[in-house]
């Protein structure tokens, strides 16, 4: 690198400038995290909430979780849900981004406004409308499907079986996160220079080859970070699931990790165990995002 040793030694200001941000992170996230680790090693129920001393049980909570088949079913379901939803979100978002760069100014602006409206819609309001759409009696979805000849969808209850429940949940989550992916990818696409694409075209590359051979590698950093964020968001999805459960079933078959922890902690008042599951979710998040961190490290090395 070209930075001289002298300059490196004297320039401390970047580190000074980092202090507020790091300080806020430590206070804002470190404190609850430490607290959570401590609680996860305690027997902490409602009586402890009201001041009784909490006995330390070390790893008993974790051991109990390891043998809990319900939990592992929820973990498997959550990971499957988050991966499928994140991939679908990415695919739809990317297609919309390509559409945005392909169409003219007016349709693009209409598309962007539509996406922004979806993005800025408060979750609870959007969920209320989605639940109406999928209502078994008066929902627009059933009504429209019923119009198709040969399809009998009147009174079909989408929220009755876990499979259709999670399809609905996935559609809603995708709808809510596609705008973010679309805008980020579109921003990435604008950075792909026209000259390179023109040169490739002159060399005889067709549309598909240009996309996979040139565009995709060039916007890969954007895609990677967006995909990572989607995975993290979809793993801890809570509001959508809990509101669908209110409209459907309270049964554990409809739980993902977020609602599982909420039921365990706030509703069944077993805060120790709920903290242990939260730590587990943190670990899963780190494992799932490892591919990204590794690629970052690799880039640093090169």
């Amino acid at each position, binding site marked *: 690198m070209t930075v001289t040793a002298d300059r490196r030694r004297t320039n401390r200001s970047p580190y000074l400038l980092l202090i507020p941000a790091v300080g806020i992170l430590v206070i804002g996230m470190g404190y609850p995290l430490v607290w959570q680790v401590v609680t996860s090693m305690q027997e902490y*129920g*409602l*009586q402890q*909430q*009201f*001041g*009784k001393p909490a006995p330390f049980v070390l790893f008993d909570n974790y051991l109990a979780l390891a043998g809990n088949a319900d939990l592992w079913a929820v973990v498997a379901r959550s990971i499957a849900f988050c991966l499928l939803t994140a991939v679908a979100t990415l695919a739809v978002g990317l297609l919309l981004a390509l559409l945005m760069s392909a169409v003219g100014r007016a349709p693009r602006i209409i598309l962007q406004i539509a996406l922004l409206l979806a993005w800025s819609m408060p979750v609870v309001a959007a969920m209320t409308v989605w639940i109406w759409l999928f209502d*078994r009696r008066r929902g627009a979805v059933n009504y429209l499907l019923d119009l198709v000849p040969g399809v009998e969808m009147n009174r079909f*209850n989408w*929220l*009755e079986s876990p499979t259709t429940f999670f399809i609905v949940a996935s559609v809603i989550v995708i709808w809510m996160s596609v705008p973010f992916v679309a805008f980020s990818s579109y921003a990435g696409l604008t950075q792909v220079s026209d000259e390179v694409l023109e040169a490739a075209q002159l060399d005889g590359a067709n549309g598909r080859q240009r996309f996979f051979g040139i565009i995709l590698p060039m916007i890969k950093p954007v895609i990677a970070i967006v995909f990572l964020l989607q995975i993290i968001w979809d793993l801890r999805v809570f509001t959508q699931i809990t509101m669908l459960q*209110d409209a*459907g*079933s*309270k*049964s*554990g*078959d409809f739980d993902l990790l977020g609602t599982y922890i*909420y*039921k*365990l902690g*706030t*509703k*069944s*008042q*077993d805060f120790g165990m709920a903290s242990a599951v939260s730590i587990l979710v943190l670990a899963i998040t780190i494992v799932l995002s490892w591919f990204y961190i590794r690629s970052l490290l690799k880039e640093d090395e090169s």
Partner: protein
Amino acid sequence: MRRRIIVVAAATAAALVLAGCSSADSPEESGGTDITLWLNGGDTPDELRDYLTSEYEDATGGTLTIEEQSWTDALAKLTTALPDADNTPDVVEIGNTWAPTFTYAGAFTDLSDMYDELGGDALLPSFVEVGSVDGAEYALPYYFGSRYMFYRKDVWEKAGVTVPTTLTEFNETAAALKTDDQSGFYFGGEDWRNGVSWVFANGGELAVKDGDEWKSTLSDPNTVTGLEQLQTLFADASLAPVTESDSTPWVNLNNNETTGAPEAATIIAPGWAHWSIGDAAPDPEDPTKVVNTWNDAVFGTFVLPGVDGGVAPVFAGGSNIAISAASKNQESSKELLKIVFSDEYQKMLGENGLGPANLDFASSLGDDQFATALIESAAESKLTPAAPGWAAVEGSGLLEEFFGKVNGGGDVEELATEYDAKIDELING
């Protein structure tokens, strides 16, 4: 011009000074302590709320703020707010089935010293019991309700059936009334609060105390008998989703606005549901809304009959009321309780269709069919187990899950054993 500016300036200065005075004066003027009361759902009508706030102000000079919590979130909010002295409500309404858990945990103030003053032995005993630990009273009854049946006289008449006198007769009638578009008896598969009546009626229990420990008794033979009856009834009489738990069943008893026919011939609901049942007509005050007015020719009530006739034990609805132990305003909170348990307020509860905590005022419920059905069904009603961990059991959703699986056609005995084990882990707190 200049003159005008001076006038404006003077006026502004005067306004500032006056504003300063008034803001400095107001706390002294009122003098009392401001407290907060949490009520759940819309069960307490506005008239009663207004009474509480104005009486509290008259009695103490302070302001009473009433904050309404939704029934679904109340348990979680109480869990997090009650221990926190800075954020706790001072007085709380608490679902009767949650009272034992919070009482055992030490969430409430001991009210034994004012128990007699507030009504003593005249207070509904089963509700006092769930709010007591070791003979000291912490959470007192607030109001009670009960569930009874609402039915469509026109549909029943057309099918040629009459009001049943035993539970078996009811089950058969409900099955006979079911058509492809109409439930004979509409209830959700996960709706354990209503479904449990069949368990109670057959002598079953959800849990019993064995020595010092509570044990879930879903696999008790009597409980299983009740659950099997319920399973058959759900399959034969109800078109409700197996995943439905808390719902608004009365909408199914009213005519569907598109088909002009009801979706259910019979429902079970808390007594106050009758305000929502009836012939639909545009609201005279707001033509965009529809109001339902009870019509005796079309709608009727009866009490769920027991196995051998008489009255089946239904789930006793209602609430307790308590002072948060963490509250900094204990004395003022006690003042509020005195208002709640005053003769006047107890009468008002009854007049609004809520069973008054003080049974001396039960007559204020009146003697119409709703009051009669309420009193009759409440007399036999049962509470959920007074176990320290009962709120956790309810919060976990295990009962919804269990009843849903039973009504979904699962093997009752197998499921009962499985869920007994799950509930036993939570029930002792």
